């Protein structure tokens, strides 16, 4: 088209058109601002306020103040719940490492790799509720796992993961790792696709073995993607497992699988303690901010345009 020969259209900063542009921009962004402000930002401010009260949702709230946090952290039950969250972090290296290996396998591009990629990503489309129900059958006393052990002649090892506190948490963590495989594999596969083939070829010419190339050349270049999947994985571990816990264990046995996010639900809706529930929610929010700042930094550095 002849248009390409024309000088680029200047975007005026002043004048009637610029004013119209700014006005249109403001008007078009109003619906999003209203929705997010009303249903996300307002409630988080309210949550901070509620967290410093004792309130059952019906009678008038009683103001406690910031000391509510001090007494919460002194509560052995709260500490037990936070311990569960910390233990869940032990699953993160597996939830990242296993997909990294799988992505490396797929990246070899052997016959049918696209099909396998689709298969591995498929569970990502499935609800945690459904995954939890099958996992329940997997770990059950008369479940799939014990059947498998018996089939390979290890019937003497009888597992009952869901019967005691820490093993139930382990069962939850294993299910979580399985569920993260799809997402993290895709992240790493995307990362590997960005690797410069000439660099790999140069390393090969220099006489590095396949393994050396992976550790010395590819892995350092994948750091950004590993960071991203770390953030996604931690966020999921701390705030996406409600359905899984609800279906698999109901938080038990004892407090065995009650993580912070499930504790919010139990305090608020099972026990009707709106103040305490809100407080646990605020603690969770603070943890998420700390984890999420990393992600935001990643997005900003990629953006290039200062906003």
């Amino acid at each position, binding site marked *: 088209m002849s248009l390409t020969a024309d000088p680029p*259209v200047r*975007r005026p900063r002043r004048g009637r058109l610029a004013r*119209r542009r*700014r*006005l249109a*921009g*403001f*008007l*078009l*962004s109003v*619906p*999003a*601002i209203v*929705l997010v402000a009303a*249903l*996300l930002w307002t*409630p988080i401010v*309210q*949550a901070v306020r509620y967290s410093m009260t004792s309130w059952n949702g019906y009678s008038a709230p009683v103001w406690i103040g910031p000391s509510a946090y001090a007494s919460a952290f002194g509560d052995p039950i709260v500490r037990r719940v936070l311990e569960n969250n910390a233990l869940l972090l032990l699953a993160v290296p597996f939830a990242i490492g296993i997909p990294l290996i799988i992505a490396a*396998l797929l990246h*070899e*591009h*052997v016959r*049918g790799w*696209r*099909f396998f990629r*689709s298969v591995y*990503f*498929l*569970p*990502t*489309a*499935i*609800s*945690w*509720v*459904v995954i*939890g*129900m*099958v996992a329940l*059958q997997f770990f059950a006393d008369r479940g799939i796992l014990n059947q498998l052990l018996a089939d390979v002649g290890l019937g003497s090892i009888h597992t009952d993961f869901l019967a005691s506190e820490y093993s139930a948490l382990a069962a939850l963590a294993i299910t979580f790792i*399985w569920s993260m495989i799809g*997402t993290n594999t*895709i992240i790493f596969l995307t990362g590997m696709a960005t690797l410069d083939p000439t660099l790999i070829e140069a390393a090969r010419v220099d006489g590095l073995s396949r393994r050396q190339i992976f550790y010395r050349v590819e892995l350092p270049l994948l750091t950004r993607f590993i960071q991203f999947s770390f953030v996604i994985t931690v966020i999921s571990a701390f*705030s996406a497992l409600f*359905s899984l816990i609800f279906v698999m264990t109901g938080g038990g046995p004892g407090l065995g699988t009650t993580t912070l*996010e499930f504790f919010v639900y139990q305090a*608020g809706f099972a026990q009707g303690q*709106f103040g305490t*529930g*809100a407080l646990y*929610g605020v603690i*969770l*929010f603070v943890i*998420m901010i700390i984890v999420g700042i990393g*992600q*935001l930094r*990643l997005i900003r550095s*990629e953006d290039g345009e200062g*906003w």
Partner: protein
Amino acid sequence: MTAASAPSARSAPSAPGSTPGAPGSPGTPGTHGPAVSRWQSARFRRRVFATVIFAAMVVIAIVMLYPFWYMGDNSFRSQGQFDQQSGHSLAGWTQLFQTLPVVRELASSTIVCAAAIAVILLVATTAGFAFAKLRYRGSGLVFLLIIAAMMVPLQSIIIPEYVNLARFNLMSSYTGAILVYAALGAPFATFLMATYYRGISDELIEAAVMDGLSYERTFLRIALPLSLPAIATVTVLQFIQIWDDLLVGYLFLPTNDRTITVGLAVLSSGRTTGIPPLMAGSLVSAIPAIIVYLIFQRYLIRGLTLGMGK
């Protein structure tokens, strides 16, 4: 699946009996005996390597697909057949339809998903365009505040949300849940749309305005049609998110308007329903998500990678 048969660069087509040293071999261009045998062994090693990888991928595929087979297999059993792990019947399915209002709950899921996605698309396309192309004083900060809301976990605001929705009487119908789903999806959708609109040239927009269109009409007539791929990505991501969600639907939807995922979770947590009907229900709830996944897989993957800022 067509992808399975797609040839790839690494797996060299192995024609049996092909002459050693055929053109196209990347390695040693040897002509003498020893060189040829070295070439052959390299080729052999590569084939063993590919076979080992293929075998590993098959094993992983079995691990990933087993739950689906398990659901299908055990849904066609009665409780007795399940306990014995032998024999099949339609008992699981008939029981499912007796205990769970499947059709009504599927309808609820569809309504809630469609309405929430409509709201998300409305706010995310307009705001995304504004933040990308129609900047105003403070728009950068507002954009940052909106996408920072991605970090707010649902559990952190669930109690105030409940109080607010109750105050405005929004929990007696779909409205409350739809609004909450829309708000939860809006930040990432806005980010995604803004990223997409940034790729459209300023010249195109200004040329349309010079031709006499208002900025609003330019958005509707020019930018919106161009952004259909991004809209598809948002739609697919949100569909799967909302269809699969438990917490919002469980707390904010009236019992008669429960989605299939909520209905299933409540049925399962009662611990009184047998496994076969639960497996049948799991399949029913999973199938729409699987279908959407199989058709729109690449949009889903694009959404994920866009989240990485690629």
